[in-house]
């Protein structure tokens, strides 16, 4: 009995070790990445361990509070990360929209300057992991959205692009792809989310970018 127990223990201990040889990758992001994450994880399950940060990464301010916790003591080989949709969202406690979104009377979560500063700090923290970093561009916002302006995505992605150039980090242009697929696979004309098929399409591009990154490793 004891013998078997020890064997079982050995198995328990050895499993993470043997799979520890697999590259480990972390996806950080909001509901968009939560949407495509399962497709990425399942597609890469033989090649890598793919984890999403716990919960929703929300805006950069929230990210700064949580990032150490999300990274933990783990080794990370690839980190695919995004902040943006929450930063550029206007919210108003009085609004009855989901998440109290309100771009008419609400306040902006993070100004472009705050976004730049916060994202810069986050990148510096991420760089310490030695992981290969990929920034995922923020996805499309239709102008009918209650709390977000369509053009702000360009503005915030522009800021992110400058930062990524500065740090030599690649960008996964999910934005251009999202424009293309939002018509058929967007949840609605006033909604930033996607149907399962839409998330699968976003995931496909993410998977390609991660595979490239793993090849380079």
């Amino acid at each position, binding site marked *: 009995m004891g013998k078997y127990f020890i064997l079982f223990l050995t198995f328990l201990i050895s499993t993470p070790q043997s799979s520890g040889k697999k590259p480990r990758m972390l996806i950080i992001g909001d509901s968009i990445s939560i949407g495509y994450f399962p497709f990425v994880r399942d597609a890469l399950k033989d090649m890598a361990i793919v984890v999403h940060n716990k919960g929703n990464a929300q805006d950069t301010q929230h990210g700064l509070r949580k990032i150490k916790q999300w990274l933990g003591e783990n080794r990370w080989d690839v980190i695919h990360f995004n902040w943006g949709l929450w930063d550029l969202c206007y919210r108003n406690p009085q609004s009855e929209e989901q998440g109290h979104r309100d771009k008419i009377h609400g306040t902006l979560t993070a100004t472009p300057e705050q976004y730049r500063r916060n994202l810069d700090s986050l990148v510096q923290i991420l760089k310490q992991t030695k992981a290969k970093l990929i920034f995922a561009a923020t996805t*499309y916002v*239709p*102008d*009918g959205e209650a709390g977000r302006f*369509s*053009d702000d*995505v*360009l503005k915030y992605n522009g800021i992110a692009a400058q930062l990524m150039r500065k740090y030599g980090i690649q960008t996964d242009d999910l*934005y*251009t792809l999202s*424009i*293309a697929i*939002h*018509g*058929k696979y*967007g*949840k*609605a*004309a*006033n909604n930033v989310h996607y*149907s399962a098929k839409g998330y699968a399409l976003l995931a496909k591009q993410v998977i390609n970018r991660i595979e490239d990154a793993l090849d380079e490793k």
Partner: protein
Amino acid sequence: MKGMSRRRFMENTGLGMAGLYLMGAQGCSTKTAREPNIIYILADDLGYNELGAYGQKLIKTPNIDKLAAEGMKFTQHYAGCPVCAPSRCTLLTGKDTGHSYIRDNDEMSERGDVWHDPALEGQRPLPANTQTIGTILQKAGYKTACIGKWGLGGPNSTGHPNKQGFDHFFGFLCQRQAHNYYPDHLWRNDEKVVLDGNKPFFPHQKFPKDKDPNDPAAYEQYGGKQYAPDLMAEEALQFIQENKDRPFFLYFATTVPHLALQVPDDSLEQYKDAFNDTPYLGDRGYLPNRTPRATYAAMISRMDRDVGRMVALIKQLGLEEDTLIIFTSDNGTTYTGGVDYKFFNSVDSLRGLKGSIYEGGIRVPMIARWKDHIKPGSISDQISAFWDMLPTFCNMGGVPVPKDTNGINLLPTFLDQGKKQQQHEYLYWEFRDYGGQQAVRMGKWKGVRTGLKKKNSDTGIQLYDLENDLSEKNNVAEEHQEIVAKMKKIMKTARTKSKYFSFPEIYEREI
């Protein structure tokens, strides 16, 4: 060669040295000079008051409204004709219906049962060697595409878009086929693209008597897997992507919001329970719909989203300063098929709807946006029409304007050089259908003749002062005989005879 035509464009637009200096100052060192792209978006039966920017309160069009906020809104722009095909013909050939080749929707029923025989697609085709905006811009070095509804010639006809100046075509060649948003096929150039999951069905049906009109499942038979406007929007985005490095002309002729009332569920969500809907059972044509008001609004909002995606892509590609985007409609709101134009106040106080030569049938919204060229948030009351697009686009492409157009170059208005803007002496319409009608717009005056094909009707000129009587309620012909005399002369001379669209009543009936 390219530099040449760019320079010619500058001269034509009066930008000249100041324009060149500005471009230099903006640090365009990475960009080479180029002719501007043109994206011309044509809605189908969208009325004058159906966009937020024009006063619509119930239907949400945030992306198009933004286009207006970033560009110029025209308040006196006219479609070529109050129905689809002839309107499109005036647009593409730069000729009013007194001179254009196609002057009515002509299904060519002499071929057989055109409404039921799928082999008889298409309307009367444009003849070979027609000069169109497409052929002209092709010669100017543009890549040209028509995506959406064509209506000027079916498969294998002389009117096929590939033979009429368009390098690429995707969508409905035939207007009748476009009555169903879930067709079993579309056309990409000569290739029939079968749409999996869309079963063929006749787009004019009455709701079955043995089913419950309040049961959503009973309407599933009028749906399908692939919604044509979605496919068209994707094709358009792809065309823009593929041609981002060269001048292109995209004629995006969406079928929205033409009947039938059909939209995917995800778009209905936005208007769920918003309008106190009662089912439309198909008794006035096209397809039954459980929530006709919500569906109509959702169709327009979904199209609005697609416009937003195109603009977003143009911005993302850095082509905003190099791309003129126009949004307009081919005629007024429809009067049938479950569309509640009263509820939506679709043409506001204008008289008439689709089919009518009164303002409600032909006055259409037009928005023009071109960053750094057209002043944001501007409004123009320039009297203009579909046939002005050809000369305008010729000037943008740096090629000479054909002499036989009825149009004028609108670039001076776009560029806020109003004093240089040439004016129309008059605008002319004739339309043998819906009773037989004729109209002239001259300054503030509008002359109208109706009932020309009806027996015992009064066909004399009605005269309206649009400045004081936009609703065309007070016929002031008796008080202004001198204007009526001018109108009479125009109505008799402003046209050529048409081979297929004869209209002798114009001369024969009392004027």
